[in-house]
């Protein structure tokens, strides 16, 4: 595999004298991170595989453009987010009948649902995937699900930290309004939601 000689940022993050990582090493080190971001952006396993593959393909094609001005992960995040937004613009998303059940099947088969109630996650996941605008979803996933800092998000989106604050706040308020519209019991007195997970919050 070709050496990633152009990816000086990865070198600058390492101790002096540490050899430049191969492309294989770059993929190996960041694959789980990119997949996790893609998984929460796309909301399903099939699209997240495609998005992860596309992210590394584009990163490899444009590796010469990486100057180490941000971390490698931030750069990969930017590629993944752009690929996601382009795909959404191109294909949109058709809400399938029974989407709440279908989209959460993988999650509900996991042991995590024993810790965090499946009904609650299903509700949040559904609203994020099908009711949230893609640009809002990107912000909520980066900040609240994947824990990126405001500075990292600003770099990924190519906007100021002040703009991140404004847009994130708008996205969160919008999401809260969705929950209220759904009658979420955590937010609406007498809400019809029977989710135990929400009630625990």
């Amino acid at each position, binding site marked *: 595999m070709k050496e990633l000689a152009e990816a000086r940022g990865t070198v600058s993050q390492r101790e002096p004298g540490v050899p430049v990582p191969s492309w294989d090493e770059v993929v190996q080190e960041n694959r*789980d991170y990119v*997949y*996790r971001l893609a*998984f*929460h952006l796309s909301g399903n*396993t099939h699209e*997240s595989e495609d998005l992860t593959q596309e992210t590394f393909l584009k990163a490899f094609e444009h590796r010469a453009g990486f100057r180490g001005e941000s971390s490698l992960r931030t750069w990969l995040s930017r590629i993944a987010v752009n690929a996601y937004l382009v795909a959404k613009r191109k294909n949109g998303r058709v809400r399938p009948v029974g989407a709440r059940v279908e989209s959460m099947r*993988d*999650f509900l088969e*996991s*042991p*995590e649902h024993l*810790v*965090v109630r499946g009904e*609650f*996650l299903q509700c*949040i*996941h559904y609203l*994020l995937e099908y009711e949230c605008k893609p640009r809002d979803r990107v912000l*909520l996933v980066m*900040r*609240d*699900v*994947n*824990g990126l800092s*405001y500075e990292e998000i600003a770099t990924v989106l190519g906007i100021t930290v002040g703009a991140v*604050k*404004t847009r*994130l*706040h708008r996205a*969160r*308020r919008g*999401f*809260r309004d969705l*929950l209220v519209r759904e009658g979420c019991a*955590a*937010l609406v007195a007498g809400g019809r939601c029977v989710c135990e*997970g*929400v009630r625990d*919050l």
Partner: protein
Amino acid sequence: MTCAEVQRLLSAYIDGELDAASRRAVDEHLQGCEPCRRDLVSLTKTVKMIRALGQIKSPRERST
């Protein structure tokens, strides 16, 4: 600070992203403003709910 000004800052307040002066100003306003306190509570619950998705491991993470 007015209610509108405080409410615009609540998201950054929750994330600890306000400078000390802004945070103090928001704290002072919240002490005497019930509607803004309610706004903060509902926004905080919303953030917690979204963050809970982060507890879900992707299928690939579960298999490792």
